[in-house]
């Protein structure tokens, strides 16, 4: 198929259809509303369900109900809307249901603003709802990658029977880029939904889909079943990418999403000035690529790690955890919808380098 120019939100919507999404529940919020707008036209064409609920609370619980049938269902929203959905996400994790939740993030906290941010990292990665559960979290940096990861989200949700999130800053949803959809979608085999889905108990025993376990042994057992899945995710679902990582690097930048692209521009410009910097980009935020970061950060010539975010040192906690104190981890970030410029990134790199030089001289 030839490339087309699409807004990230439209591309995500189309990708969901290509991945076989059968039900979409939504409530409009900037900067992701185009997903709903697009699907309001396209969902009826493919015979799927498009439903705009009365609030994000309603939407998330519709998703909970629909996911119980084993169908491929999803919702999209932006930060404040995702906050409202947390209770149902926890319930879905507890009841082992496959659902895809996409968050096109805007600045917060509270109602915040409508410009791009990455400040929902903790909420997504550390589990915004209550209880011992995890959501698998993926973060694209281009519109094409948003397409690919959206399709992957549906597969992973079914594979693990667990909510899967994709988070992108507002830019991912709003920018236009050339994208290509696969001619045909071949998905690796999945376990059947026959064993558990609520599909009507006419000729079989009724099934109960629940997250309530009053007996503590039963509840702990459920938690351990979930935990086993999370351990499998850690083994099988780590995704990451590196850019210009080499033996010459003195500094390793860690950034995700579109922030990583800004860092790439800065790295190219620094390279032209004779400063060698590498970039590590986590694509899966849970599971976090801990071993991979540790390996790159502890290369012989790397003196420091610099985490750059459109939030206030949220991912940095995971970077520090991964590096286990073996290299100093510095932070730079902007918030509230302000996107760091390549110039600011360059400045920070040079600042960190000069700190190293100064301390070396003192010694």
């Amino acid at each position: 198929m030839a490339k087309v120019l699409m807004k990230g939100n439209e591309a995500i919507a189309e990708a969901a259809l290509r991945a076989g999404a059968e039900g979409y529940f939504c409530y409009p919020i900037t900067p992701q509303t185009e997903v709903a707008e697009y699907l309001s036209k396209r969902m009826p064409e493919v015979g799927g369900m498009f439903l705009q609920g009365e609030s994000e609370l309603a939407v998330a619980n519709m998703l909970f109900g629909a996911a119980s049938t084993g169908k491929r269902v999803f919702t999209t929203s932006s930060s404040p809307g995702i906050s409202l959905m947390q209770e149902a996400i926890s319930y879905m994790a507890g009841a082992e249901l496959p659902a895809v939740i996409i968050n096109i993030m805007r600045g917060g906290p509270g109602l915040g603003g409508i410009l791009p941010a990455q400040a929902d990292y903790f909420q997504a990665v550390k589990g915004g709802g209550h209880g011992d559960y995890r959501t698998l979290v993926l973060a694209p940096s281009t519109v094409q990658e948003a397409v690919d990861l959206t399709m992957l989200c549906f597969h992973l949700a079914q594979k693990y029977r667990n909510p899967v999130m994709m988070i992108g800053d507002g830019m991912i949803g709003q920018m236009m880029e050339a994208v290509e959809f696969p001619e045909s979608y071949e998905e690796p085999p999945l376990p059947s939904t026959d064993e558990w889905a609520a599909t009507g108990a006419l000729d079989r025993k009724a099934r109960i889909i629940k997250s309530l376990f009053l007996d503590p042994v039963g509840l702990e057992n459920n938690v351990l079943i979930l935990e086993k899945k999370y351990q499998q995710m850690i083994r099988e679902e780590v995704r990451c990418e590196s850019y210009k990582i080499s033996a010459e690097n003195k500094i390793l930048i860690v950034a995700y999403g579109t922030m990583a692209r800004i860092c790439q521009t800065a790295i190219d410009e620094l390279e032209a000035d004779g400063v060698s910097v590498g970039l590590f980009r986590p694509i899966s935020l849970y599971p976090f690529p801990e071993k991979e970061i540790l390996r790159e950060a502890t290369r012989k010539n790397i003196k420091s790690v610099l985490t750059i975010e459109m939030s206030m040192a949220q991912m940095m906690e995971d970077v520090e955890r991964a590096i286990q104190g073996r290299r100093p981890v510095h932070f730079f970030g902007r918030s509230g919808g302000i996107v760091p410029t390549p110039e600011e990134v360059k400045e920070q790199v040079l600042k960190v380098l000069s700190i190293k030089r100064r301390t070396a001289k003192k010694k």
Partner: protein
Amino acid sequence: MISLVKQHRLPTFSKSILIIVGGYGSGKSEVAVNLSRQLVNAGSAQVAIADLDIVNPYFRSREASEQLTSLGIRTINPTGGQHYADLPIILPEVKGAIEQRQGVLVLDVGGDDVGARVLSSLSGSFEEGAYEMLLVLNGNRPFTADLDGCLKMINDIESSSRLKFTGIVSNTHLLEETTAQIALDGLELARQVSRRSDLPVAFLSGLKEIIECDEFDNVDVPILPLERLLLKPWESSAGDE
């Protein structure tokens, strides 16, 4: 430095109001800001641009306000916190500028019929025959990829805006992946739309480096060279200097 830049025939207008409309992602805002610059370069004394995009939260012509103001172009945009809002704010100055008709006024309108609806609230202010309403067409967008889609777009926008188109701008592109062939295929689509709709192709627009290709030497419509002013944060404008 000797300039070797090819001189194509540039678009000129006898009307004092230029309404730039089109589908999402057709490149309306980029065409509108570049057109405003072109009008100043061509010697128009007073050029104003109003951002009437009430449907997009990012990448709007107001993002280029500073550059345009420095060229002496008057920009009519919401200010303060409302600069960032995606609310249906139409400044009273817009109506004033339409009615006063001093110099040339460029109206950059939001995408699709939804974005063009804003014009219906102003349609009473437009004097018949005093404006050009141009459809910016990008054949690489899903809903305007063929003749039927384009004709539907014309229909939808005309009914929501309560105004009639007067011409077509062929602006088919794939951003940085655009080739000369992509732009020329788009021109062919624009010509088909032109034949069916009886609207003339007002001009072709394309990135400078594309339209300088030899393939454009014999193009028989005016050509507006574009310089990208609405950049993504990682796109460096250093190359333009």
